């Protein structure tokens, strides 16, 4: 048999027809098609999804089986409690495998005959091509939503942790908080008492202690936060003005030596603030360092 060209083609054609022409499909094909097309959409999709899940479980079982067998052999070699546990687990898995691998899709009338292979039981009616992309999209959406909400939660936690008592209403430039927890900053805002503004110079140290800390640096041009002993009036942040008269190094200077509070009070013309400031300076141990502008203006 040395086929050449048309002979070879003819031989191929004849062999293929001889292989396939005697195959007769089952008579119930049209009924099965109609049964499936007439089923409600939800029932059809549910059935297909169950089929896909069964196929997936079957594939998982097939892939896991060798490893499970070796592990079972290893554990069984140890004997004792392990052996009993493995026997129980094997029986459970066999029951599950029987549930997962049913031969329910083909009737016995359709089996047998020449050309049949054991693949007849492993065929999956894979009509859920949309399932995998849908699952992928759903997973992506879940990840994105979880990420967004997770980031929001982390941000909120960070804010609450860093600014535990921050109140947006009290962070106005008027500095109207009466709790004494707000510390004025250079920018006119206020930072919570737990957060110290960064030191802007060698003399820019501030301690949130009830006792005022006096700075001995007369040449300080920047206002430093004032730890106000009284809880009545946290002074709004002023712009630095002329430095206060230089006291002796032994005489402490109030931390807020710029007299900014007074300047701010005068510019606003509120005598109440001025009075409070005077009282504050009177109570301060650095009384001698009262800004010159305050005395002159009063």
């Amino acid at each position: 048999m040395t086929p050449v060209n048309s002979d070879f083609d003819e031989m191929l054609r004849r062999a293929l027809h001889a292989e396939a022409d005697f195959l007769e499909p089952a008579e119930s094909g049209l009924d099965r098609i109609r049964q499936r097309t007439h089923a409600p959409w939800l029932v059809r999709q549910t059935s297909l999804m169950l089929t896909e899940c069964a196929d997936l479980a079957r594939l998982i079982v097939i892939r896991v089986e060798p490893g499970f067998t070796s592990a079972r052999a290893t554990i069984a070699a140890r004997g004792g409690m392990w052996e009993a546990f493995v026997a129980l687990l094997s029986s459970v898995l066999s029951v599950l495998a029987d549930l997962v691998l049913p031969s329910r899709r083909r009737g016995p009338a359709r089996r047998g005959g020449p050309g049949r292979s054991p693949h007849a039981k492993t065929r999956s009616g894979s009509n859920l091509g949309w399932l995998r992309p849908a699952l992928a999209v759903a997973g992506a959406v879940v990840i994105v939503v979880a990420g967004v909400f997770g980031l929001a939660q982390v941000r909120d936690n960070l804010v609450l942790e860093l600014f535990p008592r921050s109140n947006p209403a009290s962070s106005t430039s008027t500095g109207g908080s009466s709790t004494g927890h707000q510390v004025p900053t250079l920018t006119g805002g206020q930072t919570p008492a737990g957060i110290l503004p960064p030191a802007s110079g060698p003399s820019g140290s501030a301690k949130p202690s009830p006792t005022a800390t006096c700075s001995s640096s007369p040449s300080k041009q920047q206002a430093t936060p004032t730890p106000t002993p009284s809880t009545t009036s946290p002074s709004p942040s002023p712009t630095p003005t002329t430095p206060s008269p230089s006291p002796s190094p032994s005489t402490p200077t109030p931390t807020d030596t710029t007299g900014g509070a007074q300047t701010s009070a005068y510019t606003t013309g509120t005598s109440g603030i001025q009075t409070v400031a005077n009282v504050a300076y009177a109570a301060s141990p650095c009384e001698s360092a009262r800004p010159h502008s305050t005395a002159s203006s009063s």
Partner: protein
Amino acid sequence: MPAEWDAEQAVTAMYATHYRSLVRLAALLVRDVATAEEVVQDSFIAMHTAWRRIRDNEKALSYLRQSVVNRSRSVLRHRVVVDRNAPKPAPDMPSAEQGALTLLERTAVVAALRSLPDRQREAIVLRYYGDLSEAQIATAMGISRGAVKSHTARAIASLRTVLEMEK
């Protein structure tokens, strides 16, 4: 097939005309009649779903062929995973009513055909069993005509080599 037919009538008409040949074609591809039947039934259901877009006899047949080929590929891909761990099946026994020479020839050709890669086997089956043209094979396989020629030529060369060695 009138265009005003609904999907039910179209499925019935196409079933009466082409179901058997499509099952045989699929059986040559997937080597299993029951699976071939399911593949073809799935294709008919897909055609039923897509009938609004098809609405033509030739298009419906082409759609069915392409669907059968694609679903057969899916079956074979799925089977590859199963075959890795499944025990080797017993070889198919030839039927007794076949003549001895035909039987030998058929067995050799079919065995050689099964050793081909999937695409080459599809091209051979569609050409020599389905009697399709290159354009129809290209449509059914979803590839170009040049690729069809290439697959067919390589398949024939492989079959020649295998059959020569067996002789």
